[in-house]
Structures are given as structure tokens and as C-alpha cells.
């Protein structure tokens, strides 16, 4: 099992490693800030079959369909050039683009059984979170998109600015949705729904079957095996939950406390256990 960037999510890392230990599976880790910098991906294609791995100095590692891979976090690549890490000008931009292209290609080609495969065709890693949230709606389901406005500030006072940390350069506004703030951990065909308590202890609550089904379908549309979905959940019977944010990294998992943390930990443990146990490598197919 290979984890890349797991140090950014130490609680999830501990759970995953504990499961691997129980199943006597070796865990190899690559730090996010070394991935693509000193530990560099390679891939080959021969007779239509991919092979992939990385070079660490002169040591070559290859991942096969029998391996398990979860790139939990990945850093942007630094500018590199003939003059060193901060090499100048167009050459440095070109080199960075080439390394980035190699890493993106690697994600699509690596034969290992992969959780949340990244790359230029992975919705969870190509769309902005607000765009993902805006793509949730399907009529008559238990899940809907937030009401979003892009452009000049709306004059209606109901609109508030979307958090700057969860958008890019765009000017984005939304109408806060009714309901209590929840986070759903969606993985392995299960949903753990937690009522969020920023200054207290989160509680695990039962998700209605329709909401569970909608969240599982949403994660599948995002091509994500692990997904965290922030929701405004109205009181029972008061309409669909509104998606507020989406994250394929176990960031909220790190912050869950109390019984909710325990429930999410057990959920992650079951999910990872099945993934590691899946000898056939169900997700090892090349896409």
C-alpha cells in the first residue's frame, strides 16, 4: 500500500496504517512535498499496457495491479530550471508544465488499485468545489445545489459572498440554505452523517435512506471512492439537503470529535479494510 501526502491528514493516516498492519500489508509513504520533486514518476506504455512507478535517486519503484494507492494530498510543483528550484523565465515554466504533465499522466496510467484516482479527467480534482456542489441537483432527489450567482454582487440582501478560501478568482455569491450544518463521509457504499458543532462535540446522526442514496450517487458521479460533502440539512420532511462544499481529501475527518469521530473512524476502517482485501484490484483498470 502506498500513501502519498498522508502526513497532511494524520488521523486518517493512523486509521489506514492500522488496518494495513492488521492485514500484514506493508505501508509505503511519500511526502506530498517530495512527490514529483525528488521522487519522480515514470510510466511506460508497451503493447497497450501501462507500467508506472517512481524514481528516488537511482532507486526505481514499480507499482502493479496488486498494489494499493491513495494520493491523499498533492502539492503544486515548484518552478525548476537549470538555475535551481527558482530558475528563471519561460524555461522554468516549461519544465514545471512538463513535470506536471508527467504526474497527471501517471495518475491516469498507474495500474495500482486506487482510491480517488487523480488526473485531468477526474471531476473531483478538476472542477472547483462550488462547481461540484452546483452539479448535484437531480430533480426529485434528496440533494440539491446551492443557489449560486457568479458576477457582480447581487443587490438582494439574501446573497452573501462565497468563502474566498473555497473559490478562485471568480466573484461568487450564494443564498444561505435552510438547515443545520452537517458533514457526510461517503465511502465504500456507506454514508456517515455528522451534525457539525464547531465549538462542541459532533454527533453522528442517521441519514435518511433517500439522502444516503443521493450522496452515494453524487460520489459516483464525482468518480470518488472517498468524498466529504458539507450539507445544510433541514428538519425531517422539510425538503432536500443542500450541498455546500465537496472535498475528496479527508479534511473534515481530521476535525470530527466525540461519537461522530468514532463513527467516521470505524467507517474509514471498514472502507480501507475492504479496499486492501480486494485482491482482484477492482479499480486497477486503466482509464
Amino acid at each position, binding site marked *: 500500500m502506498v500513501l502519498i501526502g498522508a502526513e497532511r491528514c494524520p488521523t486518517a493516516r493512523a486509521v489506514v496504517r492500522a488496518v494495513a498492519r492488521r492485514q500484514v500489508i506493508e505501508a509505503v509513504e511519500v511526502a506530498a512535498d517530495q512527490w514529483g520533486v525528488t521522487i519522480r*514518476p515514470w510510466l511506460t506504455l508497451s503493447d497497450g499496457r501501462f507500467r508506472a512507478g517512481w*524514481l528516488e535517486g537511482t532507486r526505481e519503484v514499480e507499482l502493479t495491479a496488486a498494489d494499493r494507492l491513495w494520493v491523499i494530498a498533492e502539492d503544486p510543483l515548484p518552478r*525548476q530550471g537549470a538555475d535551481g528550484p527558482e530558475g528563471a523565465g519561460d524555461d522554468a515554466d516549461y519544465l514545471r508544465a512538463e513535470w506536471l*504533465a508527467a504526474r497527471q*499522466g501517471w495518475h491516469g496510467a498507474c495500474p495500482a488499485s486506487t482510491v480517488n484516482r487523480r*488526473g485531468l*479527467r477526474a471531476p473531483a480534482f478538476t472542477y472547483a468545489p462550488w462547481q461540484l456542489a452546483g452539479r448535484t441537483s*437531480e430533480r426529485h432527489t434528496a440533494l440539491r445545489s446551492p443557489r449560486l450567482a*457568479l458576477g457582480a454582487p447581487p443587490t438582494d440582501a439574501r446573497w452573501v459572498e462565497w468563502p474566498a478560501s473555497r473559490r478562485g478568482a471568480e466573484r461568487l455569491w450564494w443564498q444561505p440554505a435552510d438547515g443545520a450544518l452537517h458533514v457526510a463521509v461517503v465511502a465504500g457504499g456507506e454514508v456517515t452523517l455528522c451534525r457539525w458543532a464547531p465549538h462542541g462535540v459532533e454527533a453522528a446522526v442517521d441519514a435518511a435512506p433517500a439522502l444516503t442514496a443521493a450522496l452515494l450517487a453524487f460520489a459516483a458521479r464525482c468518480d470518488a471512492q472517498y468524498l466529504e460533502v458539507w450539507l445544510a440539512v433541514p428538519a425531517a420532511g422539510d425538503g432536500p439537503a443542500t450541498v455546500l462544499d465537496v472535498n475528496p481529501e479527508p479534511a473534515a475527518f481530521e476535525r470530527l470529535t466525540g461519537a461522530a469521530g468514532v463513527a467516521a473512524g470505524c467507517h474509514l476502517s471498514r472502507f480501507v479494510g475492504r479496499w486492501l482485501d480486494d485482491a482482484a484490484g477492482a479499480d486497477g483498470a486503466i482509464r
Partner: protein
Amino acid sequence: MILVLGTVDELVSAWFMAHLVARERPFVFVDERQLGAEVRIELQTGGDDADGVSGRICFPRWQVALGDISGIFSRLGTGSATLPETAAARAERAHAAALLDMFPGPVANRSTAAWSNASKPAQYGPIIAAGFGVPDTLVATGWPRARRLLDSWDGDAIVKSTGGVRSLVKAVTPAQVRGALIGGASAPHQVQRRVVGHNVRVHLIGGRTALACRAITEAIDYRHPDLTGHGVRLEAIVLPPRVADACRRLARDLELGFGGIDLVEPPGGSPDPADWFCFEVNTCPGYLWFEQHADLRISVALADWLGGRA
């Protein structure tokens, strides 16, 4: 009407608009340099209006509602013009990118779909899934693995960029590859086994129309005959049906309404896509050269598709 996004002095944008003018097809043009200055984009989505996107393009004295736009042709980011770097300009460029992704009608091409061409290896999986071959490839630094591959290719290799930057495809010797890959190479090299046959460019429009031409040349890289001392002649061809279907599947898998698919036809031809190689799919094809020199009616097909007539 068709919305055209680009810069007025970018050749392909200008060519397409000249076609629309000549055919009296209604269109509205937004120059990328005016985004955030003279032009704003407003979009609304979500809430109870599930799946709906509304909005408008705002000019200083008039507006175009999204509902009046039948399709979008984008050449954003392709011109050589210097773009303003104000916060307003960056915001409006982000809004334009979002519009391409969210617009409910035909778009050439959606922002996120266009990214796949930023990594040639990222397209190889879909190319293989569509039924085409991809030349044996190495993307790496480090000599030992490259040596094993080159040995199996009898040293007959070319080198090209890994990413989206166009590079001159060149034949390389094993010694040149070795020199490039050892000693802490500063860039990954994409080395491919050289394949023989005629280069064929297919423009796939609207998921259906496949307009193809064959490049007759001795040059390794037919796109740069001037740099290689060879001439090139383009001739329109009709693809074998199964090859055309494989192109359609590839464009669909890459979610491209408009794609420039680079193929190599085996010597003597073949109806089976498995006998053809595919190098990459250009997600923002500069089709002007092919239309002019092979008399392919790409602008007509694009205008029909984006105008809702296809």
C-alpha cells in the same frame, strides 16, 4: 446566435467569424482582452431551479441573455495578446471558464474537457479504450528502463513534449536519449517508438461529423515541414466507418464537442482502428490550415452544430 470568445486578431477566431459573416449567421463576439473592462458575465444556477443555468453577457450599452445563445466557440487563451491582470479581468476570465463548463448547449470546448491535452499520457488510456493503438512510450528520467525499451525498439525512437506545449517531434538515437536521461535530467522526456504510415488529422465536430485529411510528406513532424526541409500536401479523405466510429467514441470519452485527432494510417490502409495509431487529441484545434489546404468544410460543420442546425 453563436457566442465567439477569443481575440479578434487570433487567426482561427477571425477565420470562423469571417465565415459566420459570409453566411449571415448571427453571432456575438467577446474579445478576451475586454473581459473585466468592457464586458462582464453573470450566471445564476442551483436552488429550486435544478439543472437550470441563467445569465447574460453584459456589454457597456446592451446585454445578451444566455437563453439567446445557441452555442459557444472558444479560443480563450490561445492568442498572443497580453491580457490585463487586474482582479476584475482575472475574475471575468474565471467566469468565462465557468460559462463554458455550465452552458447547457453545445460548446467547443468546455474548460475542464480542454485540459486533457495538457498531458499527452493522460489521453492514452481513452485512446486505447476507443480502439486505437498508441506507440510504445516512455515518460521518465533515468536511463536503465529507457535502455531496455530502446533495445526492444531497435533504437528507432522519437522525442516530443509530455505536456500541451507544441514541440518539434524529432528522431533520436539511443545515445541522445541516454545523454538526456542520465545525470539528473531537468525535465521528463517523452520518448516513443517511431511508427510508419501517413499522418491523418481528423476534426470531429459535435460528436458526429468526422472531417479528415491525409498529410503526404517525408517529414517526421508534418506540422513543421519548413523546419525539416520537406514539403507537405494535405488531401481530404473519407475515414473507414469503424475508424470514424472510434474517433467519435474518443471525442465522447474526452467530452469534446470539437477535437483534432492525430492518427497514423498504416501503410496500405486498414478498416480496423486497432491498426491505426493515435498520438493525441487537440482540444482547441487550430483548424484553419486544414480547412484551407484540404478544402474541409470545418467552419460550416461547426457553425451548423453551434447554431443548432446539426
